[in-house]
C-alpha cells in the first residue's frame, strides 16, 4: 500500500497532502508499506453507510512506525502481523 513521506523530517502519511504537518516542508514523496502489527482492535456495530453492518477496526503500527486504522476482514488479536491493503472496499488488513 502506498503512502507519502516527508523528505525533510521523515514523517509519513497515508494520504497525500500539500505540506508536512510536522515540519512544514513541501517535499513529500511516495513510498510503499506492506506489513503492520495490530496494537488494539474494537468490534464496531455503529458502522457508516456503504460499509458492512459490523466489523472489527484495528489500530496498527506499520513496519516503518506509522500508526494507521484498518478494517479487519476476520478477527485477529493484538500482536498479529497483518498486510495492509487499499482497494475498493477501503483500507483493510489481512493476516499474513
Amino acid at each position, binding site marked *: 500500500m502506498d503512502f507519502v513521506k516527508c523528505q525533510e523530517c521523515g514523517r509519513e*502519511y497515508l494520504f497525500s497532502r500539500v505540506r508536512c504537518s510536522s515540519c512544514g516542508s513541501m517535499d513529500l514523496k511516495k513510498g510503499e508499506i506492506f506489513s503492520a502489527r495490530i496494537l488494539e482492535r474494537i468490534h464496531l*456495530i455503529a458502522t457508516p453507510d456503504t460499509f458492512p453492518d459490523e466489523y472489527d477496526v484495528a489500530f496498527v503500527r506499520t513496519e516503518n512506525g506509522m500508526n494507521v486504522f484498518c*478494517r479487519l476482514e476476520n478477527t485477529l488479536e493484538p500482536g498479529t502481523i497483518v498486510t495492509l491493503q487499499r482497494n475498493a472496499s477501503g483500507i483493510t488488513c489481512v493476516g499474513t
Partner: protein
Amino acid sequence: MASVVAASFSKFGKREEDVFTIAGESASPLVEKYGEEIDFVIVSNAYSGEYNGVSGLNNLLTTYLGMDRVPSMRVDNTSGSGGSAMLAARALVESGEARNVLVIGVEKMTGYPTKKSTAIIASLLPPEERAAGVSLPSLAAFMAKSYLKEFNPSRESLAMVAVKNHHNGSLNPYAHFQADVSLEKVMESRIIADPLRIYEYCPVSDGAVSVLVTSDSEAHSYSSKPARITGTGNASGTSSVTARESFTSVDSVKDASRVAFSKAGIKPDDVDLAELHDMASVLEIVESEDVGFFRKGEGWRALETGETALNGELPINASGGLNSKGHPIGASGVAQTAEIYLQLTGNAGRRQVKNHNIGFSLNMAGFGNNSTAIVYEVS
C-alpha cells in the same frame, strides 16, 4: 466585554417538525421580546444541507423570523459549531460591529436510517480514517479501551456518566431523554462499539436553542443578572486521531481550556459548574482531566464519589449533557451556554446547582479536531 442576557430552548428529541419550525420555537420568545434591538443573527448549524436539503439556512431563517434586513451568517464547525458561534458573537459585540447578537443553534437530524446518519457525521474524519470504516463511536471505543488499560478504573465508573447524566436529564424539561437509567441497565445494554454500550453514547436528536449576547454596558437593561463571558479559548489539534500522542488525552481541549482560564484570570478549581462534550461516556471523564478539574487518570473517581453529581462539589452536565439532553449537533454548543446562563441566574428549576457564580463550557468539534472553552461569571 460581552454578556449572555437571555436563553430559550426548544424541546430536544425526535421531532416531526422541520428545521425552521424547530429553530423558530426557540428563537421566537427572544425575537418577540428583543426583535427591534437585535442587529445580528448567527445560526450555528452543521448539516442542514445533508439532512434537510437546505443551504443558506441563516438567510432563510431570518426571513422566517421576519428579520429580513438583519445581517446574518451561518457558523459550521461540526459538533463544535455552537462554541464557534459564541466566539463569533462575542467578537462582533466586543469589536462594536454589532450591539445585540441573537445566536440560534439548530439541527434537524432524525428521520434517516442510522447508517446513513453515521456516514454523514463520519464525513468530518480525515480520508485515511473514513477509508478504514472508522466512525465517531469507534474512536470513543478506542479511547475507552486505552483509558481502561492505562488507568485501571472500574468499568462501571464509565457507565456511571450515563447514569448521572440521565438523572440530570430527567430533571430537564428540554432534554431528549426524560427518565433515569440504572447502572445495571447501562451495563446490560447493547454494545455499539466495544466496550461502550448504547446508553453511553449521545442519541441522534433534533432541537434548537437561542441566546442573546450583548455588551456589558447594555447588559443590565436586558437582564438583572447577566452572565459575563470572561474568558474564551479556541484550539485545534490534528484531525488525524492516529497521528496523536495518545488516545486518552485531547490536545485541543487542554489548549482551549488553558487559554480561556488565563483570559478569565481564574483556575479550574474556581469553577462552580461545567458543561462538557460527552458524546460518549469516556469523553466526559477524559475532558474533565484535560480541562484541569482532575489529575490525568483520576477523573473517573469523581463519578464514584459523586463529586460531579448535581449536588456534588463540581456538577458536570447538570443539563443531562449530550448523553441525555441530546446532541442536535449545531445546537449543542449553544445549549451549553444556555444551560450555564440558566444555572448562573438561578433559573434552572429542579436541576439547579447550589453554587453558581462561575460556569464553564467545553464544546468539541469532531473527535477533538477543535475545541472551544468558555468561562462565564455573574456578580
